[in-house]
């Protein structure tokens, strides 16, 4: 194989991996939008909050330590050596469920029957609140997150691909980050679990029913409030997974909440209501921006990666506003 072809394959592979990371965030949006017609602006912050909480459990941070220290002049920092990763993840999940419950109680319950735009505004408020609250609770410093996933390039893959190039071409092999590979595997597992859940359990069926027709769901005795708690818990879980992956990749910091902005074009591409859409949309954007950067970047001085996704989304808005897999967007009550 020629080096150019190998480079193309490498770029595509890395694009796919990056795309999976976008899909993970987009997935959370889709789940909530499907079940309640709410565009959840806070999804990115949920991921940040989950990652912060996870790190805190892992390292044994005392919540609100800075605040308490400032008021009472104490010297609190850690309550112990921290919890093992598995336990920390479990506890974080519980926190996310509690959060979902609180969101339903304090926000959504009071906004039943309001216009979608009002709910959307509420989620913006929620996003800012959670960001500040997370800051107050766990501190604003950048934290490293290590959940024991492999990271760094794969030497094995490098060796394998080096063989593919022609003798003496000086090709040094492909670089694939192991962390990206694990993220891809986790994402696939997540989608499989979610589809099985929604397809084969009574609760999953109820979720789909609510997504289809609120009124009818009410009429057969499905409680919307319960469903919302469940959906937000699942979205919290997806946010946790996304938070772990992104946090392990680039550290847990407040810019993590901005990944939500990258998920937006993914949603426009894939459609707001389709889980496969979120995945495929993410992959297309990941591959598209990496390829564009590698092949057209040099012509315009680079940085295509930053805006490519939005251009693509814009094109989609013009020609196929419902996205690749989305149903026609119908007003919901």
């Amino acid at each position, binding site marked *: 194989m020629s080096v150019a072809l190998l480079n193309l394959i490498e770029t595509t592979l890395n694009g796919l991996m990056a795309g999976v990371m976008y899909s993970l965030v987009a997935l959370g949006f889709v789940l909530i939008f499907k079940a309640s017609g709410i565009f959840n602006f806070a999804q990115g912050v949920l991921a940040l909050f989950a990652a912060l909480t996870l790190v805190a459990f892992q390292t044994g941070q005392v919540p609100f330590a800075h605040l308490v220290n400032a008021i009472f002049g104490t010297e609190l920092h850690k309550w112990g050596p921290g919890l093992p990763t598995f336990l920390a993840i479990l506890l974080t999940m519980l926190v996310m469920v509690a959060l979902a419950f609180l969101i339903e109680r304090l926000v959504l319950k009071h906004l039943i029957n309001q216009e979608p735009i009002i709910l959307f505004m509420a989620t913006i408020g929620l996003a800012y609140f959670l960001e500040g609250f997370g800051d107050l609770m766990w501190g604003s410093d950048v934290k490293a997150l290590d959940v024991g996933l492999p990271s760094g390039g794969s030497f094995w893959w490098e060796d394998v691909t080096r063989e593919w190039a022609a003798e003496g071409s000086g090709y040094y092999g492909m670089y694939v980050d192991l962390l990206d590979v694990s993220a891809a595997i986790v994402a696939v597992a997540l989608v499989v679990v979610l589809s099985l859940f929604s397809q084969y359990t009574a609760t999953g069926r109820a979720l*789909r029913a609510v997504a289809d027709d609120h009124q009818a769901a009410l009429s057969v*005795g499905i409680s919307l409030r319960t469903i919302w708690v469940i959906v937000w818990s699942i979205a919290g879980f997806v946010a946790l997974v996304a938070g772990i992956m992104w946090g392990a990749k680039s550290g847990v910091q407040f810019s993590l909440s901005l990944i939500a902005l990258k998920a937006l074009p993914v949603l426009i591409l894939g459609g707001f209501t389709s889980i496969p859409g979120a995945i495929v949309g993410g992959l297309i954007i990941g591959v598209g921006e990496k390829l564009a950067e590698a092949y057209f970047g040099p012509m315009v001085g680079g940085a295509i990666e930053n805006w490519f996704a939005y251009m693509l989304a814009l094109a989609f808005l013009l020609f196929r506003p419902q996205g690749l897999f989305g149903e026609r967007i119908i007003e919901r009550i």
Partner: protein
Amino acid sequence: MLQRIDETAPLLSVNNIEVIYNHVILVLKGVSLSVPRGGIVAILGANGAGKTTTLKAVSNLLRAERGEVTKGNIVFDGAEVQSLSASELVRRGCIQVMEGRHCFGHLTVEENLLTGAYTRRDGRTAVAADLDKVYAYFPRLKERRRSLAGYTSGGEQQMCAIGRALMSRPKMILLDEPSMGLAPQLVEEIFQIVADLNAKEGVSFLLAEQNTNIALKYATYGYILESGRVVMDGAAADLRENEDVKEFYLGVGGEGRRSFRNVKHYKRRKRWLA
């Protein structure tokens, strides 16, 4: 609070209710009616008379449309409806089949039926047995059990919606406009099944219909609503013979065409607490 349920008391009694939408729009101006155990009662009237609102007040689905019962009360099976949630009502055996079917389009017919059993806690085998029962009443649904409900015909969707309600083991089904958009033959078929369910399963029905003819054929008692008020009620047989009902709702005039000048207006009867 434990209430003794009087078996001779009506299953449902609606006592002089007033319903307001959006805090301003008065839709029901004092409606009273009752459904005896094992009865089929029809609410008749033109568009906008308040039939659907009455049904939704009973099934407690009004709140989802910013409607509110501001006066009067509704008692179902010994319990005050207003203090129960919609899902609690379904659990207690009062379920609504909404106007326009409202099947879950992206779910298969069988999944639709199963959502009807959402509030039940009596185990898979009992639900499976009821599923078979529903298929026995609606053999057509069995043939189409694997297809998405959105792709089935209007008649099949109506059957699906009724079947779904049956899956909750109801004491009473509130049936809103079952004839809407269906061929006369199908309407007849559906009402036949309603009568069957009533006779064999002991399910009571409160149905809202514009098709007065067929409704009075199958119902035992009827109420006629006009702009938010009950203007007439009586046994179905009496209503069928009533000259006014014949003229206004059944489309059989007394003696040929008449001038609009001679059209009679009902003298509205005020109804107080039943």
